[in-house]
C-alpha cells in the first residue's frame, strides 16, 4: 500500500487552518468536479481530493493522520504502525456524504469504512449498489451505423468478508444508431453490486465522439468545411463533397460567398427526425506562384475594380 500525502493532494501546508482546508477543498472540488471539469483525469483527481478532505476536515482524523509523522513521502510503501490509532475513535460525524466505496485502501487501512463494519453480516442489512459512470469513445461514423464497443471497467465490489475489492470486467455494449455527443446510455444493473438483497446500481455511459478530421457535430447536425475556388463560388458549379455516408455531388449556387452554408437535408445523424448536414463554403485562393497566375490576378484587378474595404470607408 502506498502512502498518500493528503496535504500535498490538496496543495496546502501541514499547518493549514481548518478554514484554509475548506477553501482549498472547495476550489479543487469545483476544478475537478466530473460534471464541470474538462480535465481528462477529473474523476480520479476528484476522488483523491474528496478522500484527502474527508481526513483533513475532521480534527480527530487529521490529528491521527498527522501523528504518522511528516517523514512519509507520497507513494512510499506504507503499513500503519501497530496501535497507531490508540485513543482515537473514528465514528459519529466523522464521515460525510462522500461515497466510502471510492476511498483508497490507504484510507481504509487507517480509518476503516464509513459505515459500521458489523452491519454487513447482520441479517436484513440491504443497500442498493452505487451508480457508476464511464465514457465511451466512438467515431462519428459509428453513430451513423450503430456499433458495439468492448469496455474494460474497474469497479469495486464487496467480498464475502465485507471488504471491497477492485475488479476489472469487460462489457460489450451496443451503441445504437443515432447517438449524439454527450448523450448518456443507461445500463440498468451494471453499476456497483449491492449489499444483501439490495440490487446493483446502474452504469451510465457517456457518449464522446473522437475529434473528426472532416466533420464536427452540433446535436444531430453535422458540419463540413468545404474548400471551393473563387470561380466555383462566383459562377456556380457542381463539385464532389464527402459526407459520412459517402461522396455526393453538390451544387454550388452562383454568387456564393465565403462562409455560406448549404444544407443537405437529413444527411446528419440519423434519428427521428434525422439531423442535417451543413456544408460551409471556404473560398480557397489559388497561389500566384507563376507568371501565368500572376497575369490572371492582374487581369482580375484591372477588370473587376473590386474594393473589399468599401464598407470601412477607405
Amino acid at each position, binding site marked *: 500500500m502506498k502512502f498518500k500525502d493528503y496535504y500535498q493532494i490538496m496543495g496546502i501546508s501541514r499547518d493549514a487552518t481548518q478554514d484554509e482546508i475548506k477553501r482549498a477543498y472547495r476550489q479543487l472540488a469545483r476544478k475537478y468536479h466530473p460534471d464541470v471539469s474538462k480535465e481528462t483525469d477529473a474523476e480520479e483527481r476528484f476522488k483523491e481530493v474528496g478522500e484527502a478532505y474527508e481526513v483533513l476536515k475532521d480534527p480527530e482524523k487529521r490529528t491521527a493522520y498527522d501523528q504518522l509523522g511528516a517523514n512519509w513521502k507520497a507513494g512510499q510503501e506504507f503499513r500503519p504502525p501497530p496501535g497507531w490509532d490508540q485513543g482515537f475513535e473514528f465514528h459519529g460525524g466523522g464521515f460525510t456524504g462522500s461515497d466510502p466505496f471510492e476511498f483508497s485502501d490507504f484510507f481504509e487501512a487507517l480509518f476503516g469504512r464509513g459505515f459500521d463494519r458489523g452491519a454487513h453480516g447482520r441479517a436484513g442489512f440491504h443497500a442498493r449498489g452505487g451508480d457508476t459512470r464511464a465514457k465511451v469513445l466512438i467515431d462519428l461514423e459509428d453513430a451513423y451505423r450503430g456499433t458495439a464497443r468492448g469496455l474494460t471497467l474497474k469497479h469495486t465490489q464487496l467480498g464475502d468478508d465485507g471488504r471491497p475489492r477492485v475488479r476489472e470486467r469487460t462489457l*460489450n455494449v451496443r451503441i445504437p444508431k443515432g447517438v449524439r455527443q454527450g448523450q448518456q446510455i443507461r*445500463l440498468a444493473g451494471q453499476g456497483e453490486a449491492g449489499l444483501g438483497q439490495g440490487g446493483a446500481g446502474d452504469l451510465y455511459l457517456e457518449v464522446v465522439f473522437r*475529434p473528426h478530421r472532416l466533420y464536427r457535430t452540433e446535436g444531430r447536425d453535422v458540419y463540413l468545411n468545404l474548400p471551393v475556388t473563387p470561380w466555383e463560388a462566383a459562377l456556380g458549379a457542381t463539385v464532389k463533397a464527402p459526407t459520412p455516408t459517402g461522396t455526393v455531388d453538390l451544387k454550388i449556387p452562383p454568387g456564393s460567398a465565403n462562409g455560406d452554408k448549404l444544407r443537405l437535408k437529413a444527411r446528419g445523424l440519423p434519428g427521428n427526425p434525422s439531423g442535417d448536414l451543413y456544408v460551409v463554403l471556404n473560398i480557397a485562393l489559388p497561389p500566384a506562384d507563376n507568371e501565368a497566375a500572376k497575369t490572371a490576378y492582374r487581369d482580375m484587378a484591372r477588370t473587376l475594380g473590386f474594393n473589399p474595404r468599401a464598407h470601412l470607408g477607405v
Partner: protein
Amino acid sequence: MSNQRTSLLSGDVLDEEIELTLSELCRACRLPAEDVLELVAEGIIEPRGRKPLQWRFQGICVRRVRSALTLHRDLGVNWAGAALALDLLEEIESLRARLGRVSD
C-alpha cells in the same frame, strides 16, 4: 480489444424520445418525489403535462437531475445555484461544439 464471449448489452439512450413518469424519474435518479418537485419548481427540469400525475419527463432530464444532485452534494450549491451552473455548462458545451474540432 477483448470481445471474448461477453454478451452484448443494450441500454436506454436517455434522449428526448424516452419519456419518464414522475415515479420512473424518481427511481432512475434515486430521489424522493418531494425533491423532484423542488427541481421542477426551480426550473432545472421541465415536465410536459399539468399535474404531477400526468407529468412526462424527457430522458435527458435524468442527466440534468443527476448533475444537479452531485453539484449540490459535492460543491454545496443550492438548487438555484445548480440550475445556473447547469445552464452555463450547457452553453459552454454548445459553444465548444461550434468552435469546431476540439483541440486537446
